[in-house]
């Protein structure tokens, strides 16, 4: 298959990446090369094959629902790009 620049532009918004029209063109070319390469997987018949998500298969792990120590607020806020005393600050979500 072949991806168009419009499709790549759409994926960029889904991926939350601002790309210039020139970057979109470069990525379209490079992604098409990789997609064409991975297309060889289509030649395998995988009917009835169970997908494998982890090499070492795991069962769900439960623990007792006990409250432990958590990160102090100041430590949690310390790396914030913008904050006030208690919160992370971001551009207004609702107008």
């Amino acid at each position: 298959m072949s991806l168009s620049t419009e499709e790549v532009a759409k994926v960029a918004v889904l991926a939350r990446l601002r790309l210039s029209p020139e970057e979109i063109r470069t990525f379209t070319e490079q992604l098409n090369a990789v997609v064409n390469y991975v297309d060889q997987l289509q030649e395998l018949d995988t009917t009835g094959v169970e997908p494998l998500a982890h090499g070492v298969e795991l069962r769900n792990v439960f623990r007792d629902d006990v409250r432990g120590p958590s990160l102090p607020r100041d430590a949690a806020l310390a790396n914030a790009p913008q904050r006030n005393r208690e919160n992370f600050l971001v551009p207004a979500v609702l107008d």
Partner: protein
Amino acid sequence: MNNATATTLLARLNAGEIRSEELVRHCLDRAEALKRLNAFVHLDLERTLDQARAIDAKRAAGEPVGPLAGVPVAIKDVLCVDGEPTTAGSRMLKTFKPPYDATVITKLREAGAILFGKTNMDEFAMGSSTENSAYGPTLNPWDETRIPGGSSGGSAAAVAADLVPISLGTDTGGSIRQPAAVCGIVGLKPTYGRVSRYGMLAFASSLDQIGPFTHDLADAALLLRVISGHDGRDSTSAPEPVPDYVASLDKRPESLRIGVPREFFGEGLDSEVESAVREAIRVYEKAGATIKEVSLPNTKYGIPVYYLVAPAECSSNLSRYDGTIFGHRAEDWSPKHPGEENLHPLVRMMMASRAEGFGAEVKRRIMLGTFALSAGYADQYYNQALKVRRLIRNDVDAAFQEVDFIVGPTTPTPAFRLGERADDPLSMYLCDLYTITANLAGIPAISIPCGFSKENLPIGLQLLAPAFAEEPLLRAARVFERETDWNARRPAVAS
């Protein structure tokens, strides 16, 4: 102190012949003298010396000390160290200081190790050359015009150049074994779940594992023992007992049937690498191993599976870097390109921050993963990749019915030149041809030095074992180490 290993240094530290402070000063001086290698992205002199002085005081007072007491260990910059810069080689995390230690860091502290700086790496562990670091490439100590491998290139170069005796890396598709091979040292990727991933900045969660870089197997056994074990903070860490890898290392494996997969010797394998690996197999044969040809028929699909699964997981994991809670935030997110004026300011803030914070390869993989998971394509790409992943695991399981270990080259070629593959993502991806199988199947694998090319570039031998068989794996590798002295060679820069 050059040519030392952690094991020999510990003997001298415990005998009182040297102090940790002297050792650490020596390492700091060397790191400064060889700064041009760019192995470290962060080194804090005072904090490093403070740890050494604390251990020296404990020893002097006759207090019990841990199994790595006073030994410097370099840390790949993808592992969280409380209050220390942890950038993952990215501009995105240029100012990030984690508020907690990764579990492996806690274990190193408990063992008395000296946390010696953070090492350079491909951004978010995506790459095979360390050229994708926002902080410039690391140079290969054997030939400074060449790549040290990646993504853990800084950790490998630091050990190869004797800046530190041992270090930690991470391996998602070969990021420990490939740099170990091209830097002439030992690199081990443990079984998925053997080592806790808590506090490791996630790239591809079903593939990532932390493991050691060392000069020899005694050190690999020592460091693996310290970092292994179940951790309640990583639900994928395995509740398996951790054997005493050090104590059993010199015991020959009870059974030494070695499988040589014909698919590891096909097109693309450099002839000098092939001869060195074939010679290594003869060494095993002379040492009494049974050599058997085996087949891993789906090997060639490993790279396409990996380049769907890993980007898919990465696109999800890296969505957390959105300029809100930590990491880089753009200063200007006003509409810049056509169509952006219709997007919400919050979305534009995230898009601008991520565009500025991430480098080209990370963006490429996020785009590829987002595409592979997007509506209409997930079945064709992502789910098909997971099914083929099962076929690859089945191949490995079948081979281990017949043999105890699988042996082959670690990399198709010795170290290539800096810049040689930078503009061609696919050729870079092919570096992982022989290493990816172990990540997809979840099994442990090790790279050990097995020779040199005519240009004096190191060549690595890879051994793979069944899940949780690190103990026999180390013992099988030791059979080779005892018969050869490749691991004793050092680059000129280290003398």
